[in-house]
């Protein structure tokens, strides 16, 4: 097959159709749009707002913990960590990659014109904003002080504060993620372009599919649980109250039945994004594509068997603890496969270090450390020692902030040219990526040590002897805050003064890089026919073949 040396940059951007951004610019065209790309940008605006609201709460917490005396009143600190938890989990981490990049790129990557149910997709954004207003009402009126886990009987009887408003916000938010995942599952099953078989799906689409399956099967249990919590708190029935025969652990069982799969909802799309970025910037196919897809789906399935490892010391039976600990070790296996596959995907590649690649490599390292500390927590005897301390806080921040937020920023930079038609300033972006990595490690590694020393979670003060670690952590938090606001600045700048982006700036093989950037309203002039597997890069000959089958020289 002769290699046609077609240089993508030479071809002018096929602007025969106006891009989805500029085709119609009235308020109504945005607020009542049915275009999956516009809904993605609407979601992007909402979650960025909530990211900085949650970040503000985190900054106040770290300022308070810089000194044992602290900055905030105890009541305020308790409300800050609760709202930080609720807003970051439900209003940023869960919707961040699926609702933004999933909405924008799943139809593009499978060659469809739009998602299966565009109106349901728009309704998902409105339900998300409704629950956002409810959580902001709870925050402004005073916030709840029960922790994002709402453990009973504290949350149903003893906690004052706006627990009911926060619980109902989470209840409504559940419907938004159900609608989004319903859309993805049906679209990926039924609207793929001809030739796009399951084993030719890009790994990002596999990741979004796995996330949607987990969302569909886990969210309803949380919806019922928060409904029962609100009902018990409002009417005083004894569903979780031991004085009425109820079992406080029943709330924990149903809550963690959702919340552990929920932490996989947060990490799976990140894995999908990294599986896109690493092959593209290492210019070689991903190592073990089938292994990666099976790992994604087995994480989605196994994540439902492990929830009680959050309750080892909560009073569940010893037999149950041993069973769940064993299952937790099995759920770690697919993650181990993925980490090794990513690392070996760099072997014999032609690696460049653009900002997305730096974020992706940061993801792999931080996810590995988070995963290993997770395995420590899965070991029963160690969890007895470190449950409820800062060791756990450090573990899940390594996975949620270190891995998922890095993947989110990596995806943001990787697809920014395609979404907005502008290139971002490369050196600023690399600086921000490195600053994020450094700031993150300085913030959360001391918390591992604090945790093993025995500093309990969710406490506004601590003995002086641990102040050095807390000051280090607070210093890291300020660096992290700067590193997270930097992209806001230079990406905003690039919207107006950034270089015009060519169709395929990273010379990637996905279908989304065939459409114009930014793509027209219906993505493709005619539906592409897929003939190739994804990631057909050849580092030796410096060529790559897009999924549509046209080979390109570097």
């Amino acid at each position, binding site marked *: 097959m002769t290699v046609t040396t077609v240089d993508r940059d030479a071809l002018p951007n096929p602007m025969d159709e106006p891009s989805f951004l500029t085709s119609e610019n009235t308020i109504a065209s945005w607020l009542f749009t049915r275009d999956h790309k516009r809904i993605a940008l609407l979601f992007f605006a909402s979650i960025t707002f909530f990211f900085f609201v949650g970040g503000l709460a985190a900054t106040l917490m770290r300022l308070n913990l810089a000194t044992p005396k602290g900055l905030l009143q105890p009541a305020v600190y308790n409300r800050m960590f609760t709202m930080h938890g609720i807003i970051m989990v439900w209003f940023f981490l869960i919707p961040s990659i699926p609702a933004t990049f999933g909405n924008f790129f799943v139809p593009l990557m499978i060659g469809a014109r739009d998602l299966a149910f565009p109106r349901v997709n728009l309704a998902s954004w409105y339900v998300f904003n409704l629950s956002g207003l409810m959580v902001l009402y709870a925050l402004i009126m005073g916030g709840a002080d029960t922790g994002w886990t709402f453990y009973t009987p504290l949350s149903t*009887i003893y906690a004052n504060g706006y627990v009911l408003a926060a619980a109902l916000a989470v209840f409504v938010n559940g419907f938004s993620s159900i609608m989004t995942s319903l859309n993805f599952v049906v679209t990926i*099953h039924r609207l793929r372009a001809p030739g796009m078989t399951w084993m030719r799906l890009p790994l990002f689409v596999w990741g979004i599919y796995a996330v949607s399956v987990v969302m569909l*099967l886990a969210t309803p*249990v949380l919806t019922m649980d928060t409904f029962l919590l609100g009902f018990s708190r409002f009417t*005083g029935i004894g569903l979780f109250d*031991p*004085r*009425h*025969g109820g*079992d406080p*652990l029943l709330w924990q*069982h*149903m809550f963690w*039945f959702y919340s552990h799969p929920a932490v996989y909802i947060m990490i799976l799309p990140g894995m999908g994004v990294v599986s896109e970025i690493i092959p593209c910037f290492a210019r070689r196919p991903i190592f073990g594509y089938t292994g990666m897809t099976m790992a994604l789906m087995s994480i989605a399935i196994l994540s*439902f*068997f492990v*929830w*009680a490892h959050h309750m080892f010391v909560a*009073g*569940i*039976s*010893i*037999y*149950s603890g041993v*069973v*769940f600990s064993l299952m937790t070790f099995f759920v770690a296996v697919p993650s181990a496969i993925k980490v090794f596959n990513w690392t070996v995907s760099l072997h014999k590649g032609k690696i460049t270090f653009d900002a997305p690649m730096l974020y992706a490599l940061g993801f792999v390292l931080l996810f590995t450390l988070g995963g290993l500390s997770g395995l420590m927590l899965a070991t029963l005897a160690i969890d007895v020692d470190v449950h409820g301390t800062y060791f756990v806080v450090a573990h899940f921040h390594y996975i949620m902030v270190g891995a998922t937020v890095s993947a989110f920023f990596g995806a943001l930079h990787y697809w920014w040219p395609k979404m907005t038609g502008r290139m971002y300033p490369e050196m600023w972006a690399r600086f921000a990526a490195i600053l994020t990595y450094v700031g993150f490690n300085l913030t959360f590694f001391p918390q591992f040590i604090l945790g093993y020393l025995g500093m309990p979670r969710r406490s506004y003060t601590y003995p002086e002897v641990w102040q050095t670690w807390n000051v280090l952590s607070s210093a890291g938090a300020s660096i992290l805050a700067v590193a997270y606001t930097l992209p806001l600045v230079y990406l905003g700048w690039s919207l107006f003064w950034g270089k015009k982006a060519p169709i395929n700036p990273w010379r990637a093989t996905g279908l989304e890089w065939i459409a114009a950037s930014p793509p027209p309203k219906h993505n493709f002039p005619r539906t592409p026919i897929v003939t190739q597997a994804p990631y057909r890069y050849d580092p030796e000959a410096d060529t790559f073949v897009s999924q549509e089958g046209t080979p390109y020289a570097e």
Partner: protein
Amino acid sequence: MSLDVNPRRALSLPFVIAWLILLVFTGVSLFTAFLGMGVWAPVAEFGIAALQAAIVFILFMRLKGPPSLRWVFAFSGFFWLLFLFGLSATDYATRRGWPPSYIPTRPGITTLEDGR
């Protein structure tokens, strides 16, 4: 796959028969409740309920035809519930301090008496 999956759509007889079977099953379930089978009563009742649900799913919701994607979606919900019921049973069946004992049996307890 066109919508007219089964050409016998005109026939309404099979559906009427299925409807009668469902009513009979409800009666049988009611009957078993009064038999005094003790522990086996709920097992029988929920078995019949599951059977009825299967009939409704397959016949009335057009799941007929070769097992396809719709079968997977139809029964994955129930399959996942087994994980919730089963794995939490490892705790509830073997937990030492269960059931808790703040259960007053005196009639008329309605107020939230504080144990303090």
